[in-house]
């Protein structure tokens, strides 16, 4: 980021940056610009994802979904946002007014602070922190504080229950998340997000997922426990609609309410990007060396596209999981974490350590094992897709008989 700022300074003002007295001001301006872009990215992503998620949910549940505002309803999220802007900002009479007003700020700061260390492509990162991934893990823990604050200060039993559940859940799942991230940190030998990506390669068998059976297990544990940390289904106990009205945000209204779901949707990008950069190879372009990416603008752009596609694929999986899986019970949530996830992630951490010693990354046998692992992974994915096709074909006549409508529309002809 600093190099980029220096280069821009030289390009625009034609003065050597080190000689200029206004360098600090220039840096401040660049920092301001970067945060502005990131905030807008996060907000737009959250908005558009809310619309996309509602459409997908509608299709999964054989409904239509929002389709009236704009072509195919694509500006529905703007209408919702404007509506919430105009609503009255209510504070319950018996609430702790200061804490009630402060809670959304904590959620907002905790989540959007994580975007600072998230990469988008080679060199396209707000701050390539030396402790990048550790910083993201630490900073997002502010979100749970905001949730507890909002839940307690609302003076409502539903909100308090939601906050309590959230505290228990996030504290528990922080441990498997951290342990499964340790695997990646160990393999890359660095905490910086960019170095973790650079330690991987473009082809799937150069990703950390397929390094060994242990990292494959670590990948699934990381993905699942990030879902739990982001309060997504099947771990959305803190805001279980059927039990707690809306959980910790029950008493909020207007713009303050908007912050909570927006942070949840923006968190989906954080989860997607984290999974991509740690296990799925990040912005690496297949068949191109790192030096080539560094020198070519086109390859950097391709890298950004690859990163976004991978992250969005993860986001879509999260959305589909939400509308297919039932919610787990509170005791099941704690049970799964402490009796399965923690020991398994510890085992896979130790297993990866031993694996790294026996089958080093660069040797022939290590490469062969990685390719075999990739073959297994690809096989499972293909089997999964075939299974979906089978379900679709067997259900088609029944669906069309009962609903009297075609089962599949092309996306541009959706009702």
């Amino acid at each position, binding site marked *: 980021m600093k190099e980029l700022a220096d280069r821009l300074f030289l390009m625009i003002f034609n003065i050597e940056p080190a000689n200029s007295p206004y360098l600090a001001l220039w840096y401040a301006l660049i920092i301001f610009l970067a945060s502005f872009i990131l905030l807008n990215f996060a907000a737009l992503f959250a908005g558009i994802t809310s619309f996309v998620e509602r459409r997908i949910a509608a299709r999964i549940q054989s409904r239509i979904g929002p389709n009236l505002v704009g072509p195919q309803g694509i500006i529905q999220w703007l209408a919702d946002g404007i509506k919430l802007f105009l609503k009255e900002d209510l504070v319950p009479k018996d609430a702790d007014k200061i804490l009630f007003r402060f809670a959304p700020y904590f959620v907002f700061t905790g989540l959007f602070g994580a975007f600072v260390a998230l990469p988008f492509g080679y060199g396209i990162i707000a701050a390539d922190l030396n402790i990048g991934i550790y910083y993201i893990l630490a900073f997002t823990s502010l979100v749970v*504080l905001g949730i*507890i604050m909002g839940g307690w200060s609302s003076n409502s039993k539903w909100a308090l229950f939601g906050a309590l559940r959230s*505290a228990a859940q996030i504290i528990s799942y922080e441990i498997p998340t951290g342990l499964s991230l340790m695997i990646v940190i160990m393999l890359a030998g660095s905490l910086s997000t960019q170095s973790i990506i650079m330690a991987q390669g473009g082809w799937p068998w150069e990703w950390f997922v397929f390094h060994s059976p242990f990292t494959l297990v670590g990948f699934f544990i990381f993905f699942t426990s990030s879902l739990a940390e982001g309060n997504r289904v099947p771990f959305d106990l803190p805001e279980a609609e059927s039990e707690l009205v809306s959980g910790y945000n029950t008493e909020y209204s207007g713009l303050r309410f908007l912050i909570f779901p927006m942070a949840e949707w923006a968190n989906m990008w954080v989860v997607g990007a984290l999974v991509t950069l740690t296990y799925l190879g990040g912005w690496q372009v297949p068949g191109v060396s790192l030096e080539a990416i560094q020198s070519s603008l086109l390859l950097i752009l391709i890298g950004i596209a690859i990163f976004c596609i991978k992250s969005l694929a993860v986001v879509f999986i999260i959305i589909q999981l939400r509308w297919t899986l039932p919610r787990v019970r509170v005791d099941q949530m704690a049970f799964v974490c402490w009796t399965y996830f923690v020991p398994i992630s510890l085992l896979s951490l130790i297993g990866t350590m031993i694996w790294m010693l026996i089958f080093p990354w660069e040797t022939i046998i290590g490469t062969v094992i990685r390719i075999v692992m990739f073959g297994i992974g690809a096989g499972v994915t293909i089997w999964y897709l075939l299974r979906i096709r089978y379900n679709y074909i067997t259900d088609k006549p029944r669906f069309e008989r009962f609903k009297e409508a075609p089962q599949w529309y092309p996306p541009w002809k959706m009702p």
Partner: protein
Amino acid sequence: MTHIVYDAVFYILAFFVVGSAGIVALSRNIMRSAFALVVTFLGVAGLFALLSADFLAATQLLVYVGGILVLILFAVMLSSRIKEIKISNLSVGVFSGGSIITLLILLLTYISIKTPWKELDTVNFAPTTSAIGNNLLTKYLLPFEVLSVLLLVGLIGAVVVARKEKDEP
């Protein structure tokens, strides 16, 4: 220019740390005390970052804000009647407490005057993570291992204490 910015950031952080620590000590509502502690921890993490201790700053956030404070809040929320000051924020022993604080202040002032502080012209912002790791596993290996055994004992102890007694058959 950078010196002014640095000093300004330091004083802003120090203001937040001291102010919120005051709220922690003086607030009549234990929940507000707990939440003011968040700001104190955040400010201390900021001070660490200002001293180029990046790893320590993130650890401060992760352990204190994400772990310990959430546990404190969890325990406070589970206890009933937290709004009654006489139960939650009772101040006992004004005389003994006051004398301890006076002694502590005297000791700290003495130390701060007597210590030969090293003054640096500029702070060199360099990554510290690998240095910490290397030192922990070479120079300070024994304390590190002893600490981890201590934590393990604490963990097992907690499980033993929390375990449900088997019901009578």
